[in-house]
């Protein structure tokens, strides 16, 4: 079977610093693949290149066997690639419902419609409410996004990503900055979609990663030093030395 996402010797430099230093990786359909790595390992830069926000210096990104290395972000979204951001990126002045409905609108019909209230389109709102229910945020639908808590913002990002009906979900540190309870909620949500949704999870939170991932890749200084099941990664001596260190005790 073709990999959903295939990364072939991707390189990206910022000046003298090789932030992505020859990364190759396959993500199979239905897989939940996690990438872990210490701060500054180049995780967000990798996600930016996969989502089309940044162009790599060399290498290729293949999606369902198709070369998308030079496709822009919107084009990739239309192919079914969704991304959530490490730093919450939502439309703060919009209501929660509008935020999600806009993502539905992006794939349902033309947005060059100048008449008719978008707020009153039942198809958009119904679909949006569905996604909000899925993440447990339906009762906040009418609130302005800026008034939600940080955890709720993360849930909302998730709903927005789901609303683009992705075939590949790129999640950039969804657990960053969440409290214990919020993390639990998010974890439950991730369990829900696991198996149904091909996901690349870039994460700092070890508990979440080891609880969720089918396979884990360890990224250190722009290189992947190991890929394997959670068990293999935990047992990998190189990974322990390079990264897990004392944190290992907690796992």
């Amino acid at each position, binding site marked *: 079977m073709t990999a959903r996402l295939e990364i072939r010797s991707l390189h990206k430099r910022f000046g003298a610093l090789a932030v992505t230093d020859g990364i190759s990786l396959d993500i199979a359909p239905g897989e939940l693949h996690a990438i872990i790595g210490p701060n500054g390992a180049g995780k967000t830069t990798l996600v930016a290149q996969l*989502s089309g*926000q940044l162009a790599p210096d060399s290498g290729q990104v293949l999606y369902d066997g198709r070369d998308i290395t030079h496709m*822009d*972000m*919107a084009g990739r*979204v*239309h192919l079914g690639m*969704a*991304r959530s*951001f490490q730093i919450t*990126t*939502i*439309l*703060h*002045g*919009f*209501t929660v*419902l*509008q935020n999600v409905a*806009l*993502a539905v*609108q*992006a*794939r349902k*019909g*033309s*947005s*060059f*419609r*100048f*008449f*008719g*209230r*978008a*707020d*009153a*389109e*039942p198809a958009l*709102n119904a679909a949006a*409410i569905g996604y*909000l*229910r899925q993440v447990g945020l*339906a*009762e906040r*639908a*009418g*609130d*302005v996004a*800026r*008034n939600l808590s940080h955890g709720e913002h993360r849930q909302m990002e998730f709903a*927005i990503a789901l*609303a*683009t009906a992705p075939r590949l979900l790129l999640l950039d540190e969804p657990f960053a900055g969440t409290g214990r309870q919020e993390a639990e909620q998010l974890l439950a949500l991730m369990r829900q979609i696991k198996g149904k949704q091909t996901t690349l999870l870039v994460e700092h939170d070890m508990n979440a990663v080891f609880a969720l991932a089918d396979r884990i890749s360890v990224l250190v200084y722009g290189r992947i030093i190991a890929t394997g099941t959670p068990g293999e990664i935990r047992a990998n001596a190189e990974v322990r030395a390079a990264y897990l260190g004392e944190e290992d005790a907690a796992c």
Partner: protein
Amino acid sequence: MSDSPAPTTAPPASPAAPLRRPRLFSRGAAALAIFGLMALVPLVAHLSDDPFLTVAFTRILVFAIAALSLDLILGYGALVSFGHAAYVGFGAYAVAILSRHGITDIFVHLAAGIGVAVIFAVLTGAIALRTRGVYFIMITLAFGQMAYFFFTSLSAYGGDDGISLRGRSTVLGTDLLAHNSVLFYVTLGALVGLYLLAAAVVNSRFGRVLAGTREDALRMQAIGFRPFRYQLAAFVIAGAMASISGVLLANQAEFVSPAYMSWHRSGELIVMVILGGIGTLLGGVVGAVVVLLLEEWLSVFTTHWRMGLGLVLILVVLFSPKGIAGLFERLLGRGK
């Protein structure tokens, strides 16, 4: 953006019912009140035997259209165009140049003005929209000034001094617009029509995408939109609307000069929108009325009337970031 704590305890929006903001309804009421009051101006002018009032208010309505069109891109797209007066000029010169050659029909004037505005907006917008922030302001300013100097150099049509019209535009062969009150109501009708059009656009699918690009362009790309094309479309619509105000301005003044297109004029339009309330549509209208009335009133006392206007602007921006429209919304107990 007011940072007043918003409705965390607002009525729990029932997920089934799509949100209908009651605010919009009362905005409609405010629009009705403003346009209704305006409609009385010729009557007041007649009763007080002051025909100048009708002419002066026609000019106010003309600039209200221009400010309304600017608010569409400034308020909903965060595109600070510093060359918006150029579009007013295109409309005005369409009247002047065509009339000079014997073509006096207003529909031809409108078509020509809008046509030139659309072409100019597409060409300059496609370039300007590759930039952001201050650079966008500077590029639109530069294009606006290019248009200004182009018409300054047209000596056949008055050049720097401008050109007087022999008469107003005709309507299907009649000189209906020669009556000041008819021109007034035509202008008011255009304002109301364009206001309704703009209100429909900002609430449409397109408007929602445009407002999304204002909030966060990266997020919009991440859900599959390419902001550029929506911003360009809005830029073109705003330019076309402004050119309509230019056609009416030429008719009101019966005189056209490059001064209509200078960057001072563009700046004044921005002041109108900010003073009235960015992103409210009606704010642009209110801003035009207030700025031009202040000009009228303050210039009686001093030639430095702009200082007074500046003071008012500072006070409004400090105490009501959403302008006069925002002030009213707060006074009427909404937006709390």
